[in-house]
C-alpha cells in the first residue's frame, strides 16, 4: 500500500464537476477525497432511514407513538415500552441497517470492479452459493442460527472463488465474470430446488423463509457479529477506495499510474465478498439490494466513481424500508423482507434500464 496516488484524478468524466475536499495525513501517505454532495446525500439518506426506523419501532401488536419511541431510545421510556422497543424491535432494526449497509457496499464494490451495472453478488452467484450452504446446514444438521450463518458464508465464499477461477482467462473481464456467475447461479438454483424437494415439509418451510432473506426474530445475538464484521471491512475498504477509483479508468491507465491491477482487483473482490457474507450470515440472501443501492445512490450523488459511502447508506435505507413494508403486507404471514426487495427492486431496475436506454447509456 505505498503507491502514491494522484488525488486530482477524476473518474468517468460524466455529469457536472463535483466539489470535493482532500483530507491528508501529515506525512501525505494517506489521503481521502471527500465529495461534499456525496456526504450530504449519505447524511440525508441515513436521516430518512432513522425516521423509517422510528416508525418501525412504534408499529406492531403494541403501538407506540414516534415521540415515545424516541424517548424510550434515549432511556426515558416506561418499562413496558422499554422492553418492546429495546429488547424486541431494536435488534431487528439494527440488523436490518447493518445488513443493508453491507449489501450496499458490496454491490458498489462489485459494480465498480466489473464495470457493469449487473455486477452484484446476486448475479455473480454468491447469493445462491450462500443459500446452498445455509440449506445444507438446515437440512442435514437441522442447525441453529449460528451454524446456518457459517454454512451460508462458507457456501458463498466457495461459490465466489469458483466463479472467479472459472472467469479467469488472462485476467478477469467484467462481463465474463457476470456471465459465468449467471451460469453458476443457475446450477445452484437447481441444487437448491432439489434440496428443498428432498426435505421434510417443516424443514422446507423453514428453509424457504431463510432462503428469501428474512429479519424475523432477530435479537441482539445477531446484531453483534454483523456489527463486528462491518467494523473490520469498512476501514479496509476506505484504504482501497482510491485505487478502485483509478481502476475504473481502465486497466491500462491504472497500470500506468502504478496501481497493481490484478492484485487490487483480488483484494476488492475479497472485501466485497466479505461484506456480502456478513449480510447473508445475519439475514439470509436478500436479493437485489446490492444491485439497486449503488444505482440509486449514483442518481442522487451524480458523482463519478464507485460512490461507496452513499451506496452503503442507501443499502441500509432500502432494507429497513422493505422490512417495514413486508411486515405490513400481511399481518400474520410474516413475509420475508427478501420477497419485497425482489419485486420492488426489480421494478425499479426495469425503470432504470428504460431511462438509461433513452439516454443512450447502455
Amino acid at each position, binding site marked *: 500500500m505505498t503507491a502514491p496516488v494522484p488525488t486530482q484524478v477524476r473518474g468517468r468524466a460524466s455529469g457536472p464537476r463535483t466539489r470535493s475536499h482532500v483530507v491528508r495525513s501529515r506525512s501525505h501517505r494517506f489521503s481521502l477525497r471527500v465529495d461534499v454532495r456525496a456526504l450530504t446525500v449519505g447524511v440525508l439518506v441515513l436521516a430518512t432511514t432513522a425516521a423509517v426506523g422510528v416508525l418501525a419501532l412504534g408499529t406492531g401488536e403494541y403501538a407506540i407513538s414516534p415521540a415515545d419511541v424516541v424517548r424510550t431510545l434515549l432511556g426515558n421510556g416506561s418499562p413496558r415500552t422499554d422492553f418492546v422497543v429495546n429488547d424486541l424491535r431494536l435488534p431487528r432494526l439494527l440488523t436490518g441497517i447493518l445488513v443493508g449497509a453491507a449489501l450496499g457496499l458490496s454491490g458498489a464494490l462489485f459494480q465498480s470492479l466489473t464495470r457493469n451495472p449487473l455486477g452484484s453478488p446476486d448475479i455473480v452467484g454468491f447469493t445462491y452459493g450462500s443459500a446452498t450452504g445455509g440449506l445444507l446446514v438446515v437440512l442435514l444438521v437441522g442447525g441453529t442460527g449460528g451454524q446456518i450463518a457459517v454454512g451460508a458464508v462458507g457456501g458463498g465464499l466457495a461459490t465466489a472463488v469458483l466463479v472467479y477461477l472459472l472467469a479467469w482467462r488472462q485476467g478477469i473481464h467484467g462481463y465474463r465474470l457476470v456471465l459465468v456467475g449467471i451460469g453458476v447461479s443457475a446450477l445452484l438454483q*437447481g441444487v437448491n*430446488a432439489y434440496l428443498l424437494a428432498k426435505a421434510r415439509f417443516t424443514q422446507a418451510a423453514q428453509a424457504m423463509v431463510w432462503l428469501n432473506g428474512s429479519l424475523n426474530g432477530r435479537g441482539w445475538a445477531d446484531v453483534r457479529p454483523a456489527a463486528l464484521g462491518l467494523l473490520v471491512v469498512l476501514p479496509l475498504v476506505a484504504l482501497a477506495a482510491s485505487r478502485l477509483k483509478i481502476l475504473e479508468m481502465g486497466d491500462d491507465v491504472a497500470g500506468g499510474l502504478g496501481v497493481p491491477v490484478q492484485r487490487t482487483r483480488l483484494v476488492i473482490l475479497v472485501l466485497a465478498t466479505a461484506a456480502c457474507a456478513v449480510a447473508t450470515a445475519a439475514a439470509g440472501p436478500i436479493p437485489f439490494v446490492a444491485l439497486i443501492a449503488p444505482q440509486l445512490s449514483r442518481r442522487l450523488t451524480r458523482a463519478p466513481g464507485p460512490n461507496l459511502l452513499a451506496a452503503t447508506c442507501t443499502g441500509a435505507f432500502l432494507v429497513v424500508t422493505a422490512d417495514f413494508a413486508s411486515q405490513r403486507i400481511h399481518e400474520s404471514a410474516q413475509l420475508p423482507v427478501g420477497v419485497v426487495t425482489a419485486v420492488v427492486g*426489480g421494478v425499479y431496475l*426495469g425503470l432504470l434500464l428504460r431511462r438509461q436506454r433513452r439516454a443512450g447509456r447502455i
Partner: protein
Amino acid sequence: MATEAGSAPLVRTDKASKQSPGRRNSTRTLAVLGALLLLLTAATLSLAVGSRALSPGVVWDALLHDDGSTAASVIWDVRVPRTLAGIAAGAALGVAGALIQALTRNPLADPGLLGINAGAATGVVLSITVLGITSLWASVWFAMVGAVVAGLLVYSLASGGRGGATPERLALGGAVIAAVFTGISQTLMLLDAQALDQLRFWSVGSLARADDETLTTITPFVAVGLVLALALVRPLNALALGDDGARALGAHVDRTRFLGLAAMTLLCGAATSAVGPLVFVGLAVPHIARMIAGADQRWTLPLSLLLAPALLLFADVLGRVAVRPDELDAGVVTAVVGAPVFIALVRCRRAVTA
C-alpha cells in the same frame, strides 16, 4: 425441410462453408439422421431403465402387445407417458431456445435466463395459490399468460432507443424480470403452505410426475408452436443479417419477431407447466446444432428439435440411476450438466461482448 440443391443458405460463418453446397447438405442430412437415432436410443433407455430394469427385448414385446404382465403395465402406465412427455417438453425447450437465440441474435439467450420460464412458473403458481386450480389443463393457460407477460416485459425493456434490443440489454432485462417473477412466486408460495408443498416438487423440473393427462394437455400447444417455428426458418435466416439487411431481402422483420415470440411463448408455457422450469436445455442444444450444421436455421431448428428431447431423456435416465434407490430430478441433472457447457461457451468467446 430439405433444401433445393444449390440454394446456398444466407448466412455462412462456419469453416465448412467452403465445401460445395451439395456435400454440405449431405453432412447435415447425416447429422439429422444421427440425431434421430440418438433420440430413439434415449427413448429406448427411458423405457428400459429404472427401479425395475427391463431388457430391450422385453420392452419391445410389451410395446407391441400389451399382455397385462407386470413389465407391460410398468411400461404402458409409467414409462411411456413419462418418455413421451419428455420428448414433447424437450422438443419445445430446444426449439424455443433456438428461436430466442435467432430472434435476439444472442448466442447466450435461453428461455430460463431471459425470465420467460420464470413468468410461466409464476402463472402456474398464481393459478394454484390464488384460484385453487389443481388440473394441469387449466394451469397451462396461466403459464402461457405468464410467459407472454414476461416475454413482452423483457422485450419492451430491451427494445427501443438506439440499437434496438441488443443482447446485452436483453440479458439485463431478462435477469431483472426473472428476479421479479421469482420474487412474486416465492411470496405466493410462502403465503400458502399447501401450495408450497405441492409446488416445491414441481419447481425442480422433473419428468417423474408426467402422466397421460400431462401429455394430452401439452401436445396441442407444443405442436402448434413447433409448426409455427418451423414455418419461420427462412425469415429467421434473414434476420441474422440485422434488421435492415433482413428488410432488404424482403423479410417482414416485425411480423417475424412477433410470430417467433408467439411460438416461443406456446412452447415455453407448455413445457414449463408440464415439467417445471428446466434450465439450460434451450441454451446448450442450439449451440450443438450450430456446431454441426452451421448457422442455417433450416437445419439448426430441426436438429434442435431432435437433440433437445434426447438430451432431456438422457438426463432423466441418468437421474434414475445416479443415486439409487433415490432419483435425481431431470432438472437437477440438466443444471449440473448444462452449467459447465454454458461456462465453457462464455470462456471460449475471446472477448465477451455478448
